[in-house]
């Protein structure tokens, strides 16, 4: 599991570690453990409120959101724009993946629901009904 590895593995390195990765010159697989289920003792107040508004008993789709690492920077994958969104550099990352994942979930919701999200512009341009 992720906790057993160096938490900053993909911040300090390029992810090209194994012999096969060195041979092909690229990292194989995700830059986080996609199978890691959330630890609900680490929920943030914002996420609790989000769950309540949506009428859910748990994180629902956010269970699949993790803090990833893209080009040696912490980032969150936003499926609605099919791209990585970088975390502001002034945010201090906790020392464990579970807390980092909770931050990633909160940041993603704030971004997706903001006026600055690209879907708002796309909606204006392409909405049919």
């Amino acid at each position, binding site marked *: 599991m992720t906790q057993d590895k160096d938490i900053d593995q993909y911040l300090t390195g390029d992810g090209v570690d194994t012999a096969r990765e060195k041979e092909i010159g690229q990292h194989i697989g995700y830059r986080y453990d996609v199978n890691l*289920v959330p630890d609900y003792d680490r929920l943030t107040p914002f996420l609790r409120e989000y769950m309540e*508004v949506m*009428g859910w008993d*748990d994180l629902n789709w956010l269970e699949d959101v993790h803090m990833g690492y893209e080009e040696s920077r912490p980032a969150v994958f936003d499926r609605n724009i099919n*791209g990585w969104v970088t975390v502001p550099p002034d945010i201090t990352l906790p020392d464990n993946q579970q807390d980092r994942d909770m931050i990633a979930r909160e940041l993603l919701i704030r971004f997706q629901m903001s006026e600055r999200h690209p879907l708002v512009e796309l*909606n*204006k341009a392409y*909405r049919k009904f």
Partner: protein
Amino acid sequence: MEELGREHESHRMGMHTEQLTGRTQQVFFSPSEERNFTYRTGFDVDFNKRTELDVADMEATAINLELRRLMSEGYGTIVVKNPGAKHSLGVSILNRLQLYFEGSLGYFGCGLIDGPNVRVSGRVGWSFAENMMAGTVIVEKNAGSTFGAAIRGGDLVCKGDVGSRTGIDMKGGTIIVGGRTGVLSGFMMQRGRLVVLGDAGDNLGDSMYDGTIYVGGKIASLGVDAVTGEMTELDVQWLKRKLAIYGLETPNGVENMTKVVAGKQLWNYDNLEPTEKKLVL
């Protein structure tokens, strides 16, 4: 065809002059961002505002448009009566909503949804909740094949048995089957969790890239590159919590469920073509 000849609104907005420089977005959120929990493009609904809709004499398109109209009027709880196993009902709802179907649905029900909590009192046909993005969906009876095909997020629950290819190509989310599941369940799944409380048919998890399958009953056979994994304490806690939400239990206890994961021998980072690799395995 007339539409093709017109300059699209997106051109007027200057969206086609943008220079794309890569897939990483440099800008993220502002700490002063307003707190908002729903999409800007969605409808503002109230769960306490309830209405009923009898669709016995309505076509599928008219039903879906009526659901949209009711949401635009702020209805947050909608009860659909007499769905009559019509196809493609309750699709493309990108909103928070409590939606109840009193009866059964046909093919492709509740596809492409993002947010609503749906409950179906009857059965559902093929490809139910295909491409689901978020929300909770509960089917009280049985479901057809390709249940939750290509699901990307949310909880999809069938309390009865389901057909073959459950969760085929799933890319996230959780599918829970209260009874048995058919052959090739979890075929080519890429992430997410498939929980089967009863038995699983042949070739479970065939060609899975990633994700996790938990089975409470017997597994007829594992597919290519699907291997058993070790249950962790976090897995057990998560399963207990998730099953309790939907009032489900596994007959032999969560601790005794079989966990299946990808052997990761089929990943396409090798000189062998996938079919050749399958022969080797």
